[in-house]
């Protein structure tokens, strides 16, 4: 029997086989499935239309209201209402509205509802985030979610795996966002299309959980089906703190087959920014030039964790955002929001002239809480800089780390912390 990658091992275990390999079509059992206030209503329509009246497991479905909440308009409110009524009627345990949750991909690991070894699908493309804790997790659409709610299963083509061997120690100030943008710049937005991105190597130990969540989160931006990290002491410590359920650790076999292997030297990575209008459009600091900025957004499922807030606060402390610049800071969950208040970060942000929003995906997808006008430029810690993503089709998004975003907010132009 040939060796298997981490992804192959998790899939094999969930379809009752000893062995699977890239290219095989399998039907797999799911440990957790999720949807949000945009994708759940569509799935509910399909579920009801099909005449289904029960779900596979009331405790393995999570419905998190996070995209357009607190509801931005009547239609959004109707979507939340529809999801809430459905959850109540069916008896779904994990329904989360505002006040008790946050952005799904920050909230579910924090709540301990996803864990190492799990097979997870979510009707949201950034579901791949949970690879950070050693799970197989992948984004799907509303129909796949609707079917999975009823059957607890989904079909998969076992993906080819690409190994990213991380070596070296990142320089001071360089975080997960710089690393994943660097990787996407190297392989392109379809460089891992349909593949699994497996992050291994001695460099992993220098990455905290927030870094790993950010990296796995943006695997989809390289076209990947999932991104996954090896479980180590840092992962165990995180799971111990957040999750009460037992979990399974998988490691790749030494003779596992990889479609490609890249060695990424973390010590060579600098502050990395993706210019409009693709996440692969990476430019080196020397190529930036003078780019005046109108808005800065710090938050999202990519970079709305406490470590991200902390990185931003260290730069904003005792300083003011540039005159006329709008700075929107969005802690990803209620717990992170509270911690920002308790530890004095909220005061730093407000004194600097930033606004702090309650948890929401909001501006990341051009929903609300910071929509761009014609010609406006935004440095954002979010994940996509497509045309019109955050507002007007003639606006621009520069994807960056919380540190670069905070420095840009102070100087009113695209800048690094060293420029201050």
């Amino acid at each position, binding site marked *: 029997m040939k060796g298997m990658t981490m992804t192959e091992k998790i899939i094999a275990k969930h379809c009752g086989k000893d062995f699977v390999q890239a290219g095989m*079509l399998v039907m797999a059992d799911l440990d957790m499935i999720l949807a949000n206030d*945009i*994708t759940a*209503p*569509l799935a509910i*329509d*399909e*579920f009801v*239309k*099909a*005449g*289904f*009246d*029960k779900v596979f497991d009331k405790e393995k479905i999570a419905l998190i209201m996070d*995209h*357009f909440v607190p509801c*931005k*308009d009547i*239609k*959004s409110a109707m*979507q939340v209402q529809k999801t809430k009524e459905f959850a109540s009627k069916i008896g779904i345990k994990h329904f989360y509205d505002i006040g008790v949750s946050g952005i799904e991909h920050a909230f579910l690991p924090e709540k301990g509802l996803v864990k190492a070894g799990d097979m997870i699908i*979510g*009707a*949201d*493309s950034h*579901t791949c985030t949970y690879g950070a804790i050693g799970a197989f997790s992948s*984004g*799907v*659409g*509303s*129909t*796949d979610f*609707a*079917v999975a709610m*009823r*059957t607890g299963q989904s*079909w998969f083509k076992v993906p080819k795996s690409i190994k990213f061997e991380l070596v070296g120690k990142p320089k001071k100030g360089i975080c997960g966002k710089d690393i994943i943008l660097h990787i996407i710049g190297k392989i392109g*937005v*379809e460089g891992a*299309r*349909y593949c699994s991105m497996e992050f291994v190597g001695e460099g992993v130990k220098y990455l905290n959980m927030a870094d790993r969540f950010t990296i796995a989160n943006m695997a*989809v931006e390289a*076209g990947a*089906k999932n991104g996954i990290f090896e479980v180590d002491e840092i992962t165990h410590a995180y799971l111990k703190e957040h999750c009460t359920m037992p979990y399974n650790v998988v490691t790749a076999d030494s003779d596992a087959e990889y479609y490609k292997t890249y060695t990424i030297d973390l010590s060579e990575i600098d502050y990395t920014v993706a210019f409009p209008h*693709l996440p692969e459009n990476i430019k080196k600091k020397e190529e930036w030039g003078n780019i005046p900025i109108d808005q800065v957004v710090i938050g999202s499922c990519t970079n709305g964790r406490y470590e991200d807030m902390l990185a931003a606060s260290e730069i904003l402390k005792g300083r003011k955002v540039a005159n006329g610049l709008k700075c929107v800071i969005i802690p990803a969950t209620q717990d992170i929001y509270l911690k920002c208040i308790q530890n004095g970060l909220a005061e730093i942000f407000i004194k600097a002239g930033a606004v702090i929003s309650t948890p929401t995906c909001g501006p990341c*997808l*051009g*929903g609300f809480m910071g929509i761009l006008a014609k010609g406006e430029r935004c440095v954002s810690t979010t994940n*996509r800089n*497509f*045309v*019109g*993503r955050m507002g007007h*089709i003639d606006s621009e998004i520069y994807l960056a780390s919380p540190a670069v975003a905070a420095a840009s907010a102070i100087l009113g132009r695209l800048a690094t912390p060293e420029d201050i």
Partner: protein
Amino acid sequence: MIVEGKVFKYGDNVDTDVIIPARYLNTQDHKELAAHCMEDIDKDFASKVKEGDIIVGGNNFGCGSSREHAPIAIKASGVSIVIAKSFARIFYRNSINIGLAIVECDMADKINNGDMVQVDLDNGLICNKTQGWSAQVQPFPEFIQNIIKNNGYINSVKKQLGGK
């Protein structure tokens, strides 16, 4: 199944944000979504597209979010099939799941805006009537043909479960 229509041609990396911008994701109404289809990349698309027309893209068509609203908007616009050099995986899966025909073709970049194209899905044959050439593509495997025959994944599962 044979479809034929006029081509609306786009480039590489057509993302789901331009197919249906998030500002319209507060509805599930298919017609309303269709009214804004492709709006941020081609503001005339919704008014010009006719039943049976074909969208042709380059590499990585449908990249970005998992919103099923994107293939729904395209299907509800009357588009009979999307042809591209390659597709992003969630979009590909969603299209099949809702019964929107979708096919990968290496020759996609040879097809021009406004060409008349015919596609024989069962036999995997693409015929560019304007330019006078044909290309063979991979026909759907059986389990995908079944999903399309049953008008979507949910219906095929319903049939399998006997309704409950």
